[in-house]
């Protein structure tokens, strides 16, 4: 079996506050998608389960907006955040 990939997870705004961290590193099987990363995080129990809850979670991979089906590569930056409210 091949080596797990490392993904750098960044959290912002309400998610950063409620999850108590803004940065973490996740080890995932090769070929994992953003949805797999969310599943693994949510499996840690409260408060992480909210990542699979009703409130929308936006995704960016390497600072470009992404969808749960998008796959992850070793070293990718995966950001999770609530819908934006700037301007």
């Amino acid at each position, binding site marked *: 079996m091949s080596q797990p990939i490392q993904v750098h997870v*960044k959290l*912002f*705004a*309400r998610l*950063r506050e409620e999850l108590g961290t803004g940065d973490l590193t996740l080890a995932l099987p090769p070929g994992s998608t953003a949805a797999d990363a969310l599943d693994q995080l949510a499996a840690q129990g409260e408060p992480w389960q909210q990542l699979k809850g009703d409130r929308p979670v936006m995704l*960016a991979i390497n*600072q*470009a*907006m992404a969808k749960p089906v998008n796959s992850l590569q070793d070293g990718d930056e995966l*950001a999770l*955040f*609530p*819908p*934006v*409210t*700037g*301007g």
Partner: protein
Amino acid sequence: MSWPCSLRSREADMGVRVQTADFDLATEYQRLRDESGQAGAIATFTGLVRDYGDLQDVRGLFLEHYPGMTETVINDLIQQAHKRWHIQQVQVIHRVGELLLGEQIVFVGVSSAHRTDAFAACQFIMDALKTSAPFWKKELTDAGEHWVEQRATDLIQAQQWDQDD
């Protein structure tokens, strides 16, 4: 959302600033005027902190952003505007950190030979920024703090640019 690094860094130097410091409309306007050869039109938009109505007694906002992605997204919006309209210079400034009621949050300035292009590009960038640039507002009150939720009207306003023109 991707282009050659050389273009991206040139545009970042010219057109986008994310900063805690306040900005001066007169300075930004004068620069747009000076750097535009034959501009006939300069449209500006400035957003100010107001009570968004989610809570009572709001005294200000705290603005968080995603450094790096913010500049990339706004530069991409500026590039899109250059493709859609005949415009000359664009300047976008967005403040982050703690801002009190009445303070300036955001500036978009566009110069063009023609006023319709200046207006359209300015409004497009502002509408799109509100729904795609990674900024988050938290309302600050004496009773506590509260993250502002995205407004459906902002999404509708930004989507109109996909349909018309």
